[in-house]
């Protein structure tokens, strides 16, 4: 970290001056330990929780009746369920990016947002995970997608991108969870030692695994954390690549293209950062954490969005270009269908949300203005959802044989499930900010001047 600290004066501070080990610790841990839950919190959590119940109801009905309650049909075998799955998985990526990649790049500013970015990753992946499980016609048999010895002596089919998904997503979930928990251990110890109430002491004590900050432990700890970051980095890139394979491996015009992996990953980070920003802007306000999550963070996040947004835009352009340049009559038509077909409005909306609007981020004022940044992030999230809709539905609904063309109309059950997952996500976030330090305390300590060892 030393070279970090030397550079610090050159940059805008990532932590406001005047904080000490003690004040940082108290500020953050107090939110969990002493600050009473406000009515606002209860209301927010209540609403989110109800939405989640709505989702569970929709899923229950689905299991009872079948996929037919959704808008899916032939030829559009995949509708909202896959659109939402990809959307959520994408959002998850930002967390890992912040905690792993930025760490490898020694971006110390990530220290103050990585904790809840990771939390967000976990919850987003959980939301995403809902869909693969329920989108199959016979969910009670979904476990056949895992290789386990059975009396049928029959196995999964490893050439299928869906199996790759199963492995990629479950690995991603596991590693993210571990990464998150490892990061939490020292802070849990802090909470253990700070909390007055005995039951809390015991719970946090158990979770802290008896952490006492021994120098040897710190050393191994940091190695492991670094290794984990090193593993998570290729993993996070692979996950959305694999998700993009679900389409790229298919022969459907509009799916069968090699540009997908890079621009899916870029898109993922794009939407992920949008979500991070949307979360941290209200949170830093409510919990008065402007000192820790400074304008620098907003600025940097906005820059990342701008960059990834441009990559995504490049993706769109290449896609369109190849549609024309390939000379393949089906690819050509896919392009035509996006521009003039029955869903063309959505396609143009996608360009507006993902490419045109975010260009305002070139203006520093907007990058550091919480309000506008919040709005733009929301727009981006909508845009990224539309991107998945365009790819999944608009490619399927008009493929090779004109005789089998069709239209897709989502039903109320599609919406209930989708909105329900958002509820589930928020409910989890609400709980998280109440029970765990939403900012990594020990990593904040390392940002303080006094953390340096003076010779």
């Amino acid at each position: 970290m030393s070279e970090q600290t030397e550079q610090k004066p050159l940059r805008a501070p990532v932590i406001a001056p005047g904080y000490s080990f003690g004040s940082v610790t108290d500020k953050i841990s107090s939110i969990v330990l002493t600050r009473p839950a406000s009515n606002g919190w209860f209301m927010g959590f209540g609403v989110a929780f109800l939405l989640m119940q709505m989702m569970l109801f929709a899923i229950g009905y689905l299991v009872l009746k079948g996929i037919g309650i959704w808008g899916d049909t032939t030829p559009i075998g995949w509708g909202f369920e896959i659109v939402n799955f990809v959307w959520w998985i994408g959002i998850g990526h930002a967390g890992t990016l912040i905690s792993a990649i930025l760490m490898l790049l020694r971006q110390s500013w990530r220290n103050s947002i990585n904790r809840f970015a990771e939390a967000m990753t976990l919850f987003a992946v959980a939301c995403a995970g809902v869909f693969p499980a329920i989108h199959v016609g016979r969910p009670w048999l979904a476990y056949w997608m895992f290789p386990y010895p059975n009396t049928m002596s029959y196995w999964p089919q490893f050439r299928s991108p869906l199996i790759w998904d199963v492995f990629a997503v479950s690995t991603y979930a596991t590693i993210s969870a571990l990464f998150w928990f490892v990061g939490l251990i020292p802070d849990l110890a802090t909470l253990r030692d700070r909390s007055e109430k005995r039951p809390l002491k015991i719970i946090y004590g158990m979770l802290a695994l008896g952490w006492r900050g021994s120098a040897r432990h710190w050393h191994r700890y940091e190695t492991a954390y670094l290794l984990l970051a090193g593993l998570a980095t290729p993993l996070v890139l692979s996950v959305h690549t694999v998700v993009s394979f679900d389409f790229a491996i298919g022969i459907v015009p509009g799916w069968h293209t090699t540009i997908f992996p890079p621009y899916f990953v870029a898109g993922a980070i794009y939407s992920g950062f949008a979500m991070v920003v949307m979360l941290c802007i209200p949170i830093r306000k409510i919990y008065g954490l402007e000192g820790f999550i400074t304008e620098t963070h907003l600025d940097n996040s906005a820059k990342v969005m701008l960059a990834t947004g441009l990559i995504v835009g490049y993706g769109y352009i290449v896609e369109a270009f190849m549609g024309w340049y390939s000379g393949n009559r089906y690819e050509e038509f896919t392009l035509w269908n996006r521009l003039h077909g029955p869903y063309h409005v959505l396609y143009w909306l996608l360009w507006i949300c993902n490419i045109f609007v975010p260009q305002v981020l070139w203006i520093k004022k907007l990058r550091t203005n919480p309000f506008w940044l919040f709005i733009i992030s929301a727009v981006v999230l909508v845009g990224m959802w539309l991107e998945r809709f365009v790819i999944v539905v608009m490619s399927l609904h008009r493929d090779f044989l004109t005789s089998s063309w069709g239209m897709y109309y989502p039903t109320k059950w599609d919406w209930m499930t989708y909105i329900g997952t958002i509820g589930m996500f928020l409910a989890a976030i609400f709980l998280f900010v109440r029970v765990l330090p939403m900012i990594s305390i020990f990593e904040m300590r390392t940002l303080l001047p006094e953390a340096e060892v003076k010779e």
Partner: protein
Amino acid sequence: MKRTPTYGLLAEFDSPTALVKAAEATHAAGYVKIDAYSPLPIEGLAEAIGFHHDLVPLVTLIGAIIGGATGYLMQYWINTMAYPLNIGGKPFHSWPSFIVVTFEMTILFGGISAVFGMLALNGLPMPYHPVFNVSRFAMASKDRFFLIVFSSDKKYDDVKTREFLESLGPKTLTEVPD
């Protein structure tokens, strides 16, 4: 000289710098069985107390290799030996399709062994530890820095060690009961 049953002597400091200096001095003084506690990772502290070889990377590497091998061999066995089936005219051993799962398995096993390897080598979880008996030690997870000399150290002596540590100018010096 006679020894009372103590676990060690715990010296408290108020800054990373102080701790590192004290640790270096103690180690230089020939104490081996010592340890330092801090609320944040401190560069060079581990070296200061004479901790050098770290096994975590090795454990991780082995885990990753096992994972990758398992992943690929499983697919190879299933598709060419267990139940070879003609899937869309592709060969039984279509290795390009097997890469993804192999990769994911590598990461999965690597990650898991990194974390659990680290915990195991650290001897965690260990909910009880003698130093917790020292009330001031609760500050070790906030803004206080501790150095301990274990009574199990050959060179340990109630009086001499206490004198030595006091010479390092700690904020407090406490005896950790066994």
